[in-house]
């Protein structure tokens, strides 16, 4: 099962990073949930791609901790 983080949107594409393989994956915007935003974590569930709110929150908190430690 793929877990993708949306890195950014460029024109018609959502550019995502596979969180396991680190591979950059380009997806057509219309294949992604319409509510999906930059930074959201996507998973395949029951045959469709959805935003995993819990996983998104968990990753944001993880990175926020690093940010708090690193910024002067």
């Amino acid at each position, binding site marked *: 099962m793929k877990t993708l983080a949306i890195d950014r949107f460029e024109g018609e594409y959502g550019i995502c990073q596979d969180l396991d393989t680190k591979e950059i994956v380009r997806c057509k915007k219309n294949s992604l949930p319409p509510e999906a935003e930059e930074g959201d974590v996507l998973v395949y569930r029951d045959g469709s791609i959805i935003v995993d709110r819990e996983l998104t929150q968990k990753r944001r908190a993880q990175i926020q901790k690093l940010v708090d430690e*690193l910024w*002067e």
Partner: protein
Amino acid sequence: MKRKKKRVKDLPASVLIFIIVSLLCLYIGPDFLEKPGPVAGSAEFHFIDVGQGDAALIRAEGANILIDGGDISAQNTLIEYLNAEGIKKLDLMVGTHPHSDHIGGLVPVVRQLEIDQIIMPRADHTSAVYQELLTSIQEKGLKITSPASGEAIQIGPLEILALGPVRDNYGDLNNMSVILKISFGDISFLFTGDGEKDAEADILGTGLNVNAQVLKVGHHGSVSSTSYDFLEAVNPDIAVISCKLDNEYGHPHQEVLDRLKAAGITVYRTDLMGDIILVTDGKSIERKTTQ
């Protein structure tokens, strides 16, 4: 004994100097053969061809600055470029914003080079590459700063003026881009990251002097950026666009190219020209055509 002494004494000075220099070369090793940086009184601005992404190296006497590192796929290209330039230490590394086409190539740079100072916008993002970059910075025991708009930083002979981001939060990462004006003598280069029209309008609102002879065109020449008002205020002679040939996003957009053309600005593009090196003596700019 007497004869031997005489022989040593008779060795010509030039031979002695040759021996000393040879020994020094052996002692210093390959460093002696590395490409020297720019000569005193000049600065070099390298726009490195990293495909779809941004990476710029700025060199002056006692100053090496890297702004962005291209995407993950450009990691080798970038590190090889820096190695070929003989760079072991960066006085400043800037990650304009956390998108992979700007920070992807920075991870090996952090791991392999000595870095004095790191500037990035304080932003959270969930990508693996952003996490990896922050982790590599932490492992090296380094810290990150985000200068306020209007803050000045001096590195060697280079004067850096932080212009953006003006706000702490824009709701999107492009507008969070660190935007810097770097000046050497009378010549200024403006590095815009992927800053879009909102970021440009905010910078104009600060009243800071954005005028520059060279503009690194925002967001790879996308219509999201380079608004008419901003371009008019910057009023550059040269515009540099960093992108991949025939990229999937249509960068640079025709509208932006038309706007630059109408203003009579010379356009240099990494997708058409490869690495672009501009050299300045602080008064004029020349494009270096051979490495």
